[in-house]
Structure formats: structure tokens, C-alpha cells
């Protein structure tokens, strides 16, 4: 019965939690996952950009980017598994309640279609396969870029779950931004007008959607204002804004400026994925983000909560 223990008891009395311990578990995912968010989105939107651009240098480079992005994605996901040799277990079933399951199938289909499309775009062979694969890859690239937002939202982590309306939008914007920037960097300026437009549109969408998400989260958005999540968010905002301005201002005239601006944008997009990823850990680690909103729901009469006292029983 030391005073320290008694004090802990008093804190618990105030509704904090059991010795201030987390109530939910933090994810066990490591840096491969935000890296995949970046590369998967890059690949998904690049396929769309490539398909809509038709033929020509921009399309070829965008197909190559899509292929490279997806080639990196699968190993990243497999490496993050606790038992990597069992990655094929992902294909045992299709489950709409599991964005990871849905995403696995999108990724599988996208990988196959992109391989066919890119093979034709880069070598000129297999024209019929290419023709069939191009629209499929472009179409599958869209949900590939946004399901990752749903994946994070379908957890009990408050900063992710309560952003369920916003996370897919943020990820879509990030995908557009990344695809635009990659194509801007890889294509000579006279062929890269569409890529530059995509970069600028994506930058505005990303900065705006992240801002809206954080505002709507209110107090739950605190993780974005402290710790690693905040550091990487500031970095992301700065890199994306500076890079997009550089691309807009001199990307048309100067190849080096286009490459520098696009690289900054790409780095910024990657930092944004990492910021969102870290925010989840910070959110899960502090019980106040779990208990607070739940108590507020009960207090507001929106939920009766999970417990019932004898007085609450209508008899």
C-alpha cells in the first residue's frame, strides 16, 4: 500500500485507465507498410495516367513507373508478414469486411494487368495482351490507391477509424501527387504537361484533404500536432508545397528544376504516408483517445455503453 500505488488508484478513479496503460494494442506493422502505401499509390495512379495519355513518352514512362511501383509493393507487404512464407494464405478467401483481403485481390489483378500493359508499352510486343491489360490496370489502379485508406480506417485506432471519411481521399490525393511527380521527373518537359498538371492538382488535394482530416478529428487529431507524426507532417507539407511550386514555376522550361521539384514532391508524399502511419501508434498508445470519445458518446446519449447498472434495468 505504498503512496505511489494509492496515487495510481486515484488516477484510475478519475477514469484515466488501468495504470495509464493503453486500452487497445498498437499495430505491429513496421516501416514497410507506409512505404507500400507510397509505392502502391504511385503505381495505381501511374497506370491511370499512362492509360489516359495513350501513346508516347509520358505513357511509356508512366507504365514503367507503375510496373516498378508494383514490383516493389509485393515484396514490402510480404516482408512485413509475421510468417512471410505464408503469403499465399492471403488468397484463401475473399472478404469484403477485410480491406486487406480486398486489397490483396486488387493488388494481384493490378500486378498482372500492369505487367501485360507495361510489357507492351516498353517492348512493343504482345499488342493484344497490352490492349486488354491497359484499361484493366488503369481501372484497378484507382481502388488500389484508395483501399489503403479504408484499411487503416477499419481498425479501432481512433485517429484512423474516426477519419474513415477522409483517409481514402488523402490516399487518392497522395497517389495522384506521386504519379504526377514521378512522370514529371522522368519525362522531358515538352511531353510532361499532363504530369505537371497532375502534380499541382495532387498537391492542392493532398494539402487540403490532410488539413480537413485533421480539423474534423478535433482533439483526436492531436497526434498530428506532436511527436513523429507532427514532424513528418510538417516535412511533408513543406516538401510538397515547395516541390509543387518549383514544378509549376519552372518545370516547363528547365528539366533540372522539374526533377528537383518532383523529387521534393515525392519525398513529401512519402513523409505524409509515414506521418499518418505514426499518428496511429500515438493514438493507440494513449488511453484518453479511446476512453474520451466513448465516454462522450455515452454522455451525449448516442450510446448506452457496454455496461449496465441495476438501476438501468427497466423491470
Amino acid at each position, binding site marked *: *500500500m505504498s503512496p505511489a500505488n494509492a496515487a*495510481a*488508484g*486515484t488516477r*484510475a*478513479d478519475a*477514469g*484515466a*485507465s*488501468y495504470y495509464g496503460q*493503453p*486500452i*487497445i*494494442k*498498437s*499495430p*505491429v506493422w513496421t516501416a514497410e507498410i507506409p512505404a507500400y502505401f507510397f509505392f502502391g499509390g504511385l503505381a495505381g*495512379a501511374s497506370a*491511370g495516367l499512362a492509360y*489516359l495519355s495513350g501513346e508516347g513518352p509520358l505513357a511509356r514512362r508512366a507504365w514503367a513507373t507503375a510496373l516498378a511501383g508494383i514490383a516493389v509493393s509485393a515484396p514490402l507487404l510480404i516482408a*512485413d*508478414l*509475421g*510468417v*512471410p512464407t505464408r503469403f499465399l*494464405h*492471403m488468397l484463401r*478467401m475473399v*472478404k*469484403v*469486411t*477485410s480491406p*486487406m483481403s480486398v486489397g*490483396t485481390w486488387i493488388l494481384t489483378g493490378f500486378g498482372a494487368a500492369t505487367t501485360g500493359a507495361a510489357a507492351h508499352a516498353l517492348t512493343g510486343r504482345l499488342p493484344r495482351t497490352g490492349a486488354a491489360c491497359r484499361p484493366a490496370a488503369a481501372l484497378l489502379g*484507382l481502388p488500389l490507391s*484508395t483501399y489503403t*485508406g*479504408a484499411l487503416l*480506417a*477499419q*481498425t*479501432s*485506432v481512433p485517429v484512423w*477509424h474516426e477519419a474513415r471519411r*477522409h*483517409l*481514402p*481521399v488523402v490516399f*487518392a490525393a497522395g497517389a*495522384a501527387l506521386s504519379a*504526377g511527380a514521378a512522370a514529371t521527373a522522368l519525362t522531358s518537359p515538352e511531353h510532361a504537361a499532363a*504530369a505537371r*498538371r497532375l502534380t499541382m*492538382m495532387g498537391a492542392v488535394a493532398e494539402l487540403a484533404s490532410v488539413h480537413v482530416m485533421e480539423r474534423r478529428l478535433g482533439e483526436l487529431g492531436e497526434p498530428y500536432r506532436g511527436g513523429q507524426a507532427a514532424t513528418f507532417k510538417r516535412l511533408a507539407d513543406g516538401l510538397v508545397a515547395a516541390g509543387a511550386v518549383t514544378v509549376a514555376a519552372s518545370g516547363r522550361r528547365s528539366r533540372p528544376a522539374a526533377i528537383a521539384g518532383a523529387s521534393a514532391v515525392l519525398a513529401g508524399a512519402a513523409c505524409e504516408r509515414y506521418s499518418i502511419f505514426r499518428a496511429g501508434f500515438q493514438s493507440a498508445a494513449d488511453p484518453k483517445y479511446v*476512453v474520451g470519445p466513448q*465516454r462522450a458518446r455515452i454522455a451525449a446519449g448516442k450510446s*448506452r455503453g*457496454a*455496461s449496465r447498472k*441495476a438501476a438501468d434495468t427497466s423491470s
Partner: protein
Amino acid sequence: MTFTVRTYGPDQKPRQGFFTDTSICIGCKACEVACKEWNQVPVQIGGFTGKSYDNTEALGANTWRHVAFIEQRKEMTFADGLVEHAALEQLAAQTGLQTYQEGDGLRWLMASDVCKHCTHAACLDVCPTGALFRTEFDTVVVQDDICNGCGYCVPACPFGVLDQRKDDGRVWKCTLCYDRLKDDMQPACAQACPTDSIQFGELDDLRDRAEQRLAQLTDAGAEKAQLYLADEDDGVGGAHAFFLLLDEPEVYGLPPDPVDVTRNLRTTWSSAAVAAVGLGVGLAVAVFGGRR
């Protein structure tokens, strides 16, 4: 959105589970030990935490039963003292047990926590491999030969029950002794519990018993006594492991209003679909917007 699929047909068994009456838990940890022994859960030596008698701290991959110890220092007024004294006397008379000491105004709460085996289980919903499944007893079990350690169930659980075992990469949790249930035995923890704080049985019976116990304790003056996860209309559709608590859930490290995230899945998928269409439109505008 909720999904309930019953596929066992004639093999379906009555819904079974735990009623954990924390008011008669004496903190002996026999449940933790019995669980470890029966299920061959690896040791995990965490050292001395200083958190009362609790050195396992929380449920996890290697802790499937966890006994919480909460020491509350209370300002005891004369009237409070009388009420609590009366409550204790009545309890002692009925059960032969004292659950907490009064004396210096210290209240000691003990509670054995476990996987809740939710009626609407987020872990099961998000599992992409089907390693997590619902048994014929309606409980939720991880198949260790299927789990590939993707880790999705870990942050999905609103109670923080599941975790990954670092050295083997898979996720582990309470099986409600699925193997014993198949042989008509009760789970190891319930069998080992010397005070029947952990009671195993058919859910309907347990709920009746819990109802009576709640009334009894409330009459005896335990005004914060409450049943936790005993009703089907809570955020997880009620649980197969439910509790009688003597204070608010968060005091025990339990969420006051847990929700199966699948309830909001329609919003989540709608948002993803809208964002995907928006991305398509954005790409089209970028490509064709300059060619007027």
C-alpha cells in the same frame, strides 16, 4: 453493417462463454497459471512492475488470462463505511469470502480479464486469411496453422486482446479452450478458479445468474456494480465473456463503449469508392484539361 453466418447446421452447439464475477475474485492468478499450462503458452518474464500485484500488465500473445489489481484509496465517510460494512457482511455470510479490505479506506479491486469472444468480432471480420474463425460454440479462435502474421486483427480489436508473438510471427489469443469444449470439459481457467469468480456455461444461464448477482450486490450497497458486455445491444453485440464490475470499465482498463468497427464499414468503403472515382476524374482532367 453486421455479418452473421451460421454454417454448422446440426453441429451447432449452444452459445457458451464466461461470466467473470469480479466481486469474488481474490487475485490468486490460478486462472493465469492454468491457462498457461493447458495451452502451453510461453513464459514471459516481465519483472516487477510496481503495479500492485500485477506483473503481467495486459492481455497479449502470451497472456490469455490477466488478473488486474486496482488499489483505490477512498475517503470513507461514516455512512459509506456502514454501507460497505453491511455489504461485506452480507457477502461474507453468503460466500464465506471477503472481496476487499476496508480498514484504512483502501479498496482493492481484482478482475480476471480474457478475450471477450464478441458476437460481432472485428478481429474475425478483418482477418484476410480466415485464420480467425467462429466455432460451433460461437466463440472466436485463431488457427495457428493458417495465420500468416499480417497483424490486422491486432489494432482492430477494441479491447487490445490480440498480439503477435515476436519470435514466431503469428497472432495468439484465448481459444476459450476450444479443445476442452469439444470434449465437454470446461476451460482450464474456469476449472482452476477457486471462488467461481470465473463461471463457464451456456450464455443464457450465465446471464440469468449475473442478473441475480448484480441485484444482490446493488441491494447490498455496491452502487457502482455493473454488468459489462452482458447485453446484445452494445457495440459488439454482447460478448461470450462478460463481467460483473464494481467500478467503471476504464478503471479495469476496459473501454466503456467498445464498437465493432465493421459497423461503420459502409461509410469506409463508400469513401474509398468515392475517392477512387475522384482520382479517376482528377487523372482525366490532368491529361485532357490542357488540350482544349
